[in-house]
């Protein structure tokens, strides 16, 4: 990808002219300066919210699931809704980092790091729920197939919940490896910028002795490509398997073959919305408007239009099949969704997910960060309600009318959900402080100087960039005789 040709007609991905050194400085700056007052306020808020969540979970685990609003008919509600919601959020990271990488979408470079981090944090938030929703969470390890001394006890490989365990853990592992692997060159950059002390030692270990040599870069890129290939099926698998929780059951409204593609599209839809929410804040707060440009935002809104369309189609198909199948239970469930006691939730979902994305057809909306921000929140609300509608409205009125019931969440459930946002933002805010939130190495490859036409006084750089087989040439004020030597020389005192 490094020697790919970029048309001058294209809007530049880095909108302002920056030297490579400036880029490094800019991206590393948030880690190196003292946190701003705003960061502290945000962090305090996030930690307090997290503490609320911890308190709620502690109370729930010590007292019993009864502190939630569930009942004999409705066994899942907020817990699994939140689980699917967060897993869905976690989808954008892999999509951006793996699929867009394979499709050579260069615009991913300035958002992939943060999106991947978001993925990890979202999956962490998601993983809380399958554990705490158990009646006896201290026995959660029983879902793992490990050799044990409890006789012939084993796990049930027919259970979609077990598939979830594998799907989520695999997804988390691959995402974490992929994210970490992509971080290594940047970790070395940070290592080289740090003067000394503990921080230096830590980054030294974390950067795995990165030298920035041509051979290192070569291997790095090969492995990155392979990992991207490995992660790609996961984009489809995770939410497919999550949807199996419902699709393989017998409950009308759950028992639906359309669920796997529907869930994947919904996950990408919500994931991109969440990336937008975070990126719009980040670019303003950290002054990265030239790195995360309107074009980035616009591209993401286009993905939202597409996935939103798929989701809308799925909603329609569900209703069509409910009618076309002639299955009275299914027909009832869908009529009940749209016109029953939870109709408000259904129509909230439709408004947010079906109607609101279409505003992105307007360029004005698509290019206004404020409008995008609002709509991204709306979509996330809609996607949360989608899962709520699927889970609760299907369960609350199933086959036998005698057990029909209603569900109202308790303070504990709402508090736990809010608490996961606390966890998410605590982690994300820490992330902005300790790691470069934009891939320094990758963003340089799409910087203006790499485009050849308007190199601002570093005449050698365009040539350098196009000559070397790497996209990450070592930045140096002066051209150096050979890349290998450059690396060897620069390593000592220069940021890579």
């Amino acid at each position, binding site marked *: 990808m490094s020697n790919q040709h970029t048309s001058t007609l294209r809007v530049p991905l880095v909108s302002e002219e920056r030297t490579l050194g400036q880029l490094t400085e800019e991206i590393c700056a948030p880690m190196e300066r003292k946190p701003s007052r705003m960061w502290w306020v945000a962090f305090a808020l996030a930690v307090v919210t997290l503490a609320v969540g911890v*308190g709620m979970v*502690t*109370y729930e*685990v*010590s*007292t*019993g*699931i*009864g*502190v*939630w*609003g*569930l*009942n*004999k*008919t409705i*066994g*899942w509600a907020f817990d699994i809704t939140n689980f699917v919601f967060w897993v869905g959020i976690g989808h954008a990271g892999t999509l951006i980092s793996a699929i867009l990488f394979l499709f050579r979408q260069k615009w991913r470079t300035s958002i992939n790091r943060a999106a991947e981090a978001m993925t990890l944090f979202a999956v962490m938030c998601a993983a809380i729920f*399958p554990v705490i*929703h*158990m*009646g*006896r*969470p201290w*026995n*959660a390890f*029983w*879902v793992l197939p490990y050799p044990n001394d409890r006789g012939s*006890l*084993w*796990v*049930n490989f*027919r*259970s*979609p*919940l*077990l598939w979830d*365990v594998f799907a989520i853990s695999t997804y988390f592992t691959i995402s974490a490896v992929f994210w970490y692997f992509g971080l290594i060159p940047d970790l070395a950059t940070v290592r080289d910028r740090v003067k000394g002390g503990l921080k230096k030692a830590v980054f030294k270990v974390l950067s795995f002795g990165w030298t920035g040599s041509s051979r290192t870069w070569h291997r790095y890129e090969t492995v990155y490509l392979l990992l991207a290939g490995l992660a790609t099926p996961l984009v489809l698998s995770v939410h497919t398997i999550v949807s199996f*929780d419902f699709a*393989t*059951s*017998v*409950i009308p409204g759950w028992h639906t073959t359309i669920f796997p593609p529907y869930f994947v599209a919904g996950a990408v839809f919500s994931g991109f919305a969440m990336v937008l929410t975070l990126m719009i804040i980040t670019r303003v707060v950290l002054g990265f408007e030239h790195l995360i440009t309107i074009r980035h935002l616009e591209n993401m809104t286009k993905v939202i239009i597409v996935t939103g369309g798929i989701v809308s189609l799925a909603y329609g198909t569900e209703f069509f099949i409910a009618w076309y199948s002639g299955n*009275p*239970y299914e027909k*009832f469930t869908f009529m009940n969704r749209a016109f029953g006691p939870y109709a408000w939730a259904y129509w909230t979902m439709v408004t947010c997910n079906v109607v609101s994305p279409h505003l992105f057809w307007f360029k004005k909306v698509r290019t206004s960060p404020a409008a995008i921000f609002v709509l991204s929140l709306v979509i996330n609300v809609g996607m949360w309600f989608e899962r709520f509608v699927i889970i609760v409205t299907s*369960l609350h*009125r*199933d*086959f*036998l*009318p*005698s*057990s*029909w*019931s*209603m569900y109202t969440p*308790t*303070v*504990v459930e709402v508090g736990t959900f809010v608490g996961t946002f606390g966890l998410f933002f605590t982690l994300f805010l820490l992330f902005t402080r300790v790691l470069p939130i934009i891939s320094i190495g990758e963003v340089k490859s799409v910087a203006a100087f790499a485009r050849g036409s308007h190199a601002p006084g570093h005449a050698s750089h365009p040539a350098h960039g196009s000559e070397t087989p790497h996209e990450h040439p070592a930045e140096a004020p002066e051209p150096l005789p050979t890349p290998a030597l450059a690396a060897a020389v620069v390593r000592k005192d220069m940021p890579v």
Partner: protein
Amino acid sequence: MSETTPKYWQSLAARDGDPALLERSRNEFAEELPVGVAAQPADQSSRRDFFKVMGLSAAAAMVACQRAPVQKAVPFLTKPDELTPGLALWYASTCGACSAQCGVLLKTRDGRPIKVEGNAEHPVSRGGVCAVGQASVLSLYDANRSRWPSVGGTKATWASLDQAVTGGLREVAEEGRAIRLVLPWVLGPTAEVAVARFLAAFPTARTVRYDATGELEAIAEAHRLTHGVRVVPDYRFDQAKVIASFGADFLGTWVSPVAFTRQYSAARDAAGTREMSRHWQLEPLMTLTGASADKRVPVAASDLVPALAGLVKRLAQKAGQAVEGLSGVPAPRMDANVLSTLAAELWAAKEKALVVCGGDEPAAQVLTNLANELLGNAGVTVSVSGGLALDAGAMGFGELLAELEAKQVGAVLFHDVNPAYTHPRGEVLAGLLKDVAVTVATSDRLDETASLVRFHAPDHTPLESWGDAEPRRGVLSLRQPVVSPLHETRGMVESLLKWAGVAQSHHDFLRARWEAEVFPRANVATGFQAFWDEAVRQGVAVVLPQPATTESPAFRPESVAAALAGRGVAADEGLELVLYQKVGLRDGALANNGWLQEMPDPISKATWGNYLCVAPATAEKLGISDGQVVRVSTGGKTLAVPALVQPGTHPRALGLAMGYGRTKVGRIGNAVGENAFVLASSTNGKVRRAALGVKLEVTPETRPLALSQIHASMEGRGLVREAELAEFLANPRAGNEAEGGHGGGHPLSIWSGHEYKGHKWALAVDLSACTGCSACVVSCQAENNIPIVGEDEALRQREMHWMRIDRYYEGEPDAPRVVHQPMMCQHCENAPCETVCPVLATVHSTEGLNQQVYNRCVGTRYCANNCPTKVRRFNWFDYKHDEPLERLVLNPDVVVRTRGVMEKCSLCVQRIHEGKAEAKREGRELRDGDIRTACQQSCPARAIHFGDINDPDSDVAKLAKSGRAYRLLEEINIGSAVTYLTKIRNTGNGSAE
């Protein structure tokens, strides 16, 4: 500490010895920890609560590391011969929970009774036992029972109490002042003899008979008028071809519901006998009996007597007899054709018809007797001579109140009655009893009445005492103690004898009476000892009736005019309140019983508390919705109760259940609901509990009702299938045509299915027999250690019953048709729960059971979500069995589940194993009927059948092949192991939907 050491005080209150402060200082924590935050409104949790919760959880984490406390099992030094640990002993006895006195078998384990079951050998109840009877075993362990006798509220010894009572009674008798013994109408023959001895010892003593609900009293009073004897006749619903019930809930609460249910279902076994009785029900409120009726006509309470009079007029016309005294009764405000059709049908079934009537009005009972007389039913469906003779010389409670007000009474003894709570003028007792020298109560706790008396001599529970009963003349049912008294209580018979100067134990007295009076009538060749042993073993002895005559006393036609005198005025068109008994709680004597409080009412499906039943049309007119608080005023008294829109209620009728709102029954029953008894009217000593003119005020306030079932319509799903009798006789598959269609065979399966080489357990439920009485629900709860969750949790729809009875309405809300469907785990062949459990905590057994492995369960609730019949129950909390006494009721064969695990019906797997082990021990094949599930055992209607479906000769296999058989949700191929049999109705309409 020396006397001179100065005592420093903390505050003025401490210095003055403020008792409240002292009490507080004994507690480690000044305030109680808030439990159930979910129950609190959000704005009530404070910072303090937050820290408490945090601190508690940190402490909990550390406490969890503690070793489990060592518990020691102490073996017997000398083991009783009959006791084998792990084996249950069964004793035949007589239920004492209500006046029906059914025969029961009591299961004891290691010396403690744990289960009440029906005694199939008993000629009256014939194997059934109702929910109340089942629950009486829990009342034995009620922690709020009195543990010792007391005098003036302080603990006393029996000797000192006896001395004081005897002395007091002698003194009163010597002064010639009245001694009054307030008793229930039904005591049992031996207890009656003891009462007679007491009366003989104190010449000024008389009995006062009290009936909280007035039903027995009205029947007895009417028979006194019409036949000259105070008797509750022996009804034979199995002999009746046409039954007309005017507000009598004979399947639920009236006289002897278990026996009547057995008889009723025997006469309605369309599949077996090809015949079916026709059941008419005219009633103001929707009752359990009305729900089973073929023809149900809502009639206002004030129109019951006019309706009966109208019926009698028509019957008299057909009989060609003239009846005096009916002219004054106004015409009933109902469709006259109903009465004409009913009269014609009754007349056609002449001699094999039966008219019964509920309520507390003797006039209505007199008309009922007249109707039966005109139909010639005497001796066939209703037998006065075979009935239960009641105390002929007793005074009414109204007379006692008058005497008390006149200060003529020197001593009052209350036994098994609670007028301070159940009488509309109960509140005056407190003042009146102050002027009585000797006041005694033998109730099992310091209840509303007992707390007003000086001497409290607590009686045994029926499970701890000897006794007998004569539910039908000549059928002597024996009661034996199955556990030695838990507390320092003493049988009431023994107390009475002691005070009367007879030093004989209850057992000796009973045995002596049986030897002298019962044995000679027994007509057996053996000696008395053998007869007695056999009677104790069987729990019942059938002897020659005493008096031996079966001649029924003649009907006195002149009584009708007397009974109906002054009934000329038609009631106004206003709303009428009817106080009724719920199937679970009846008159509220067992209000401290959690099983009964939590048993969903068979009709309204409400648990915990009472509510005003309002007809849908009336509710719409007045703007009343479910749970809306209404203020009911009558006779200067007002109650604020939540309303419940009850289909089938007559538009002018309002129903409020008695038995709630107790104040001194114990921690479970106190302050549950409102006391409806206070709304009854009491004029001239006559209490009326129906057709009370009331004023209704609708308030904006709401009080949620803990309903176990919210939705009442079947939504057109073929869950309960039914057919009309004529259709069924022509085609056994009538109403069940869908069965075996697309649902029957799923031809395409890539899996061969489970293989059952040995047994395959299955259930069959006869929806035609099931009346919905819910005896099975409580039986299941007792057998399987199912916790009581309480009102708050029931409001959240988290009751734990493994077995429930679904109730659906169909048709017009004002006169709906009702169906009941017992619902338990269906033990599906392709169980949706089994595939989804990640840890294999629910698995299929080799005998077709769907088994739940509690200690493997991690509680994902996925199985419950995926259960199409929603029969799985989750332990939302640790349902504490923390009252040591109440813990004794637990069945040791069934594990008590911890929080966080799923549970459900196991088809009584412990009974299956017991049955198999027993057969193996005896070296024989298991026979059909060896194993009976708890629900099956107690069903008075025999609607539930259990057995091995692999055995083609078994009951259940035959039923599963019958034309009436269908399985739920065949279309999703769950392969239910429970077969339902279509409901057959005999409405005579020719076609059913």
